[in-house]
């Protein structure tokens, strides 16, 4: 089996080029169809996420011109970019390195946020697209099945996925969930309409939140965000009323001074809330909420710095799990390659066994013709004797092939077998 991968990722390539090379699912389909038309014997799949664009190819034997060059050309063609412009930016991997890389990607060891769960579904999507457009064959199936198995092993045997390290995810999963059992009946107030608010709303919606109220000095942006998240827009002048009604507050304004001071909170909000718990996530810099508000009864205020500590702690905990995860990847890579080489010997073994069986059948027929008086029981015994003889004769070469495959491609031994027993290619 020959494997090849060409691509770029967040490790070495800037976002500008990654954006130029990125594929939508429709474009992936088009690229795979075009590949299949040009290279019907070569399996291929394309993984395109915000952090990576990688084109993989798998074939039974190496083909000329080298696969990597064909892959680079194909990527360039799909985006009508000159090959020379991207060649130096792309990474090329072959055979065992491709397997190892696929396993690391699926297990989220190669992700920007180590252990993030989305990559596995993106890998699955790449596989489904390849299957759908006929570019996935037995080699791709084996690679993807093994990748998914490895990802599951890493997830279950290490704590890599347990610790969240993005600020909104930590805020929601580690803190808001400790205050509220469910979010579907909670009112979420968003002050400001920044990107962090957008990301936090995504986590909240995943957690079940449905009622979003957006307050922003610019109504236009508030309306846009409200439309995106099926929320409502409130006037800035209604801030205190919305603070009284809210259960969760996400604040991300670009104001130069606190939007909610301690006096404001005490005078307009605290009493009217009647000590209902309030979760405040202040993602603004400088902060929108006076930090002393966090000391008020039933008010749980978190700023970026509070959560960054938790994120860093999680990051360190993850780093401890890395060696264990890498060891799983190495173990599975060795196993996968050995199995692949075993699979490569199957046609020769089948051919050899076929030859032996043909000779055996011919000799048995000749013997039974010479001994017509032989009864059925004796014939069966003789047949079984011949079977055992063939099996015992074939066992040593098979075992040698298996041992050789464990240590590397047994091409020399396969060639010798072909020549010794005059097997045809």
């Amino acid at each position, binding site marked *: 089996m020959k494997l090849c991968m060409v691509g770029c990722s967040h490790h070495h390539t800037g976002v500008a080029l990654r954006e130029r090379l990125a594929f939508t699912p429709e474009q992936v389909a088009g690229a795979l169809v075009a590949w299949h038309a040009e290279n019907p014997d070569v399996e291929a799949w394309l993984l395109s996420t915000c952090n990576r664009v990688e084109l993989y190819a798998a074939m039974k034997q190496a083909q000329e011109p080298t696969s990597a060059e064909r892959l680079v050309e194909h990527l360039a063609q799909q985006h009508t970019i000159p090959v020379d412009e991207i060649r130096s930016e792309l990474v090329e991997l072959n055979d065992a390195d491709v397997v190892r890389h696929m396993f690391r990607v699926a297990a989220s060891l190669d992700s920007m946020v180590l252990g993030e769960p989305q990559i596995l579904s993106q890998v699955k999507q790449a596989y489904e697209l390849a299957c759908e457009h006929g570019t996935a064959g037995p080699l791709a199936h084996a690679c993807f099945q093994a990748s998914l198995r490895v990802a599951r092993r890493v997830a279950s045997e290490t704590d890599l996925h347990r610790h969240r390290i993005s600020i909104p995810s930590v805020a929601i999963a580690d803190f808001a969930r400790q205050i509220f059992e469910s979010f579907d009946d909670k009112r979420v107030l968003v002050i400001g309409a920044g990107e962090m608010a957008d990301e936090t709303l995504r986590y909240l919606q995943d957690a079940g939140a449905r009622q979003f109220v957006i307050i922003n000095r610019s109504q236009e942006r508030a309306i846009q965000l409200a439309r995106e998240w099926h929320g409502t827009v409130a006037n800035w002048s209604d801030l205190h009323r919305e603070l009284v009604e809210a259960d969760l507050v996400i604040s991300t304004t670009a104001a130069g001074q606190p939007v909610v001071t301690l006096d404001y909170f005490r005078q307009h909000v605290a009493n009217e809330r009647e000590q209902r718990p309030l979760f405040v996530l202040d993602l603004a810099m400088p902060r929108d909420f006076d930090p002393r508000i966090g*000391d008020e009864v039933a008010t*749980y205020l978190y700023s970026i710095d509070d959560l960054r500590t938790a994120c860093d702690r999680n990051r360190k905990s993850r780093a401890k799990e890395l060696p264990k995860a890498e060891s799983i990847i190495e173990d599975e890579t060795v196993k996968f390659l050995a199995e692949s080489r075993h699979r490569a010997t199957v046609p020769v073994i089948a051919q050899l066994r076929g030859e032996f069986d043909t000779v055996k059948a011919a000799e048995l027929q000749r013997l039974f013709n010479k001994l017509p008086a032989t009864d059925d029981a004796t014939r069966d015994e003789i047949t079984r004797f011949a079977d055992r003889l063939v099996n015992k004769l074939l066992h040593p070469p098979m075992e040698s092939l298996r041992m050789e495959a464990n240590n590397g491609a047994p091409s020399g031994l396969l060639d010798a077998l072909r020549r010794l027993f005059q097997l045809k290619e």
Partner: protein
Amino acid sequence: MQNITIFCFGASYFVALVLEVVGLWARFGWHRVVMIAMAVAGLFAHTIYLAYHATLDAAAVGTPADWYLVVAWVLAALYVGGLFAMPKSSVGLFSLPLVVGLVVVAAYSSNSPFAPQRGSVFWGGLHGWLLALGAVAVSVGFLAGAMYLVQSWRLKRKLPPTRGFRLPSLETLEHVNGAALGFSAIFVAGGVIAGVILSRFRGSAATATSLWADPLVWTSSLLLLWLVVAEVFRWVYPAARHGRKVAYLTLASFGFLILTLVAMNWTGGVHEPKPEVRSNSIHRVERASSDRIHAVGPDESGHCERWGGTA
């Protein structure tokens, strides 16, 4: 079944508690399985013990020791249920000490029947069971209140849950707190009213007067009064329906419950002076097992009655 002793299930609960505590720092491969096995084994032995002694006494709350064991059993059952319903929660760190504590108190409590006197079997049983349920509700409220305060303290200090320590959300704990306060008021009120009716069955105004001189009666009444005041306070003051105030109310309720239990241990559960013993209606008190006393024999109306239980 008679070989099962308090020590059997007390030790099982204690091992489960040790595993809960050890789990704060380290968890070995079979940690949870062993913990569940110990808790379930303890509950099983506890159930068998209570069932066996109920067949001897015809009531599960016939003695102060029984009464503690029944309360401990309900709390242990809630803990075992929680192990499956909330597998990642550290509720056991709070509930198991209470369960173990109650079992230990039961081991040192009186095995003499609650005031084996004449009266109503029905009202006596109802009185004992409602007070036991009231004690369970107050205990559950206390556990939820304690967990609420710990959880709130951690959240104020920005401490995320760890693998070994995770509590239910504040919202859940607040609901449990409120419900426990309401139910405990209902059960204790029911228990006290049943006790009053029972005292009427038994007799005279003089008896009623002597009841009010009994520490167990007035501490129970104090507990009821507190629970009613707490409910009224929550009703008229909306801020007391949320957050730490409810937790404080349940903690205070537990304080009153402790007072009542101390009074019960002090008096042995007997509310009034022993009645005059008549030769034709004597309660023969026999030792039914090595560690228990069993009251048998009918009174002149054909049945036996205990304060807080029936026989």
